[in-house]
């Protein structure tokens, strides 16, 4: 597994920020070996109040496959081809929504653009015996066309009542491992990281800093009101270095006719508050 070390490195860097990172460990038939990949927690959807990954009835992951990968999987028999022959990039949905939108928008004109699928590790009663089986179901996100269904259990994981012959229990295998930084205090399944803990302070710091910079900018830039009685060229009055402009009024009238915009400059209280919030942020993240 050559990607194990870089993926672990990435995971350990993302974990303190995101607070929760998933690892997907499975056999990749295309590579012919096991892989263990870091999965962005925003792409894995689980019931928020689930007790744990082992007992949650459904885990959904948004996956993007390139058309070439899909073609290879269709030819290898691991993916079903849709009735139209080719999977299409979604052009109807609003791609500004959803976690994958932050990873770059899809260009519908690009024939090589990746196509979104949903892979669900779930329970589903396919054989209609009243007991759902653990399966991995992959479907095209925009059309809902099911591309692949595989079993998520081994033969030795099936428990049968020897008297009645009924299946009593199936032990599924699990592909996802959840790495938590700090457990969620509200009982949610996603852990907390410095990203969540520092976010309100960071937003307040950003807001204060913007206000301070804006106040300083306004103070430096100047500007104000000129009375109509002052006969000067209309529009902004610009000076070159060392220039004196001739006006047809006296100094006192000129002084009375020009009123600068009141710009008190950056507030010292706001600056102190900024320092306080930065210190509070440092206390949270040692």
């Amino acid at each position, binding site marked *: 597994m050559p990607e194990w070390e870089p993926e672990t490195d990435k995971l350990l860097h993302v974990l303190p920020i995101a607070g929760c990172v998933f690892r997907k*460990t499975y056999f990749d038939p295309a590579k012919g070996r096991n892989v263990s990949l870091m999965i962005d927690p925003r792409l894995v959807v689980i019931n928020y109040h689930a007790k744990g990954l082992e007992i949650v009835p459904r885990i959904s992951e948004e996956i993007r496959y390139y058309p070439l990968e899909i073609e290879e999987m269709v030819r290898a028999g691991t993916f079903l081809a849709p009735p139209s022959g080719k999977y299409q990039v979604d052009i109807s949905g609003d791609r500004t929504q959803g976690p994958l939108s932050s990873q770059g928008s899809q260009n519908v004109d690009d024939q090589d653009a990746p196509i979104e699928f949903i892979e669900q590790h779930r329970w589903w009663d396919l054989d209609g015996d009243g007991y759902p089986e653990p399966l991995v179901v992959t479907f095209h996100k925009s059309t809902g066309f099911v591309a692949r269904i595989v079993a998520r259990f081994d033969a030795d994981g099936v428990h049968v009542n020897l008297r009645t012959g009924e299946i009593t229990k199936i032990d599924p*295998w699990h592909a996802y*491992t959840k790495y*938590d*930084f700090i457990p969620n205090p509200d009982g949610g399944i996603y852990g907390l990281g410095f990203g969540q803990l520092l976010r309100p302070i960071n937003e307040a710091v950003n807001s204060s800093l913007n206000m301070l910079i804006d106040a300083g900018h306004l103070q430096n830039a100047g500007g104000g009101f000129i009375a109509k009685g002052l006969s000067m060229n209309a529009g902004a009055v610009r000076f070159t270095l060392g220039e004196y402009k001739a006006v047809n009024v006296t100094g006192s009238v000129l002084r009375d006719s020009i009123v600068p915009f009141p710009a008190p400059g950056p507030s010292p209280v706001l600056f102190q508050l900024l320092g306080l919030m930065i210190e509070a942020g*440092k206390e949270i993240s*040692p």
Partner: protein
Amino acid sequence: MKDVLTGDQQQHNVPATTTLAPIEQGLKTFTAIYKRVHLALKQELQKLYRLNRV
């Protein structure tokens, strides 16, 4: 304590045990985090063990 953990020497001629105590105290939070990461790594390795067994 934060400064000690980041390698900042604030005092001179201080016994090593005096410095070690706040370091150990400061690392408590991290120890709990390492424990969780270690537990998750164990679960991941168990999955790999199962895959290699199949």
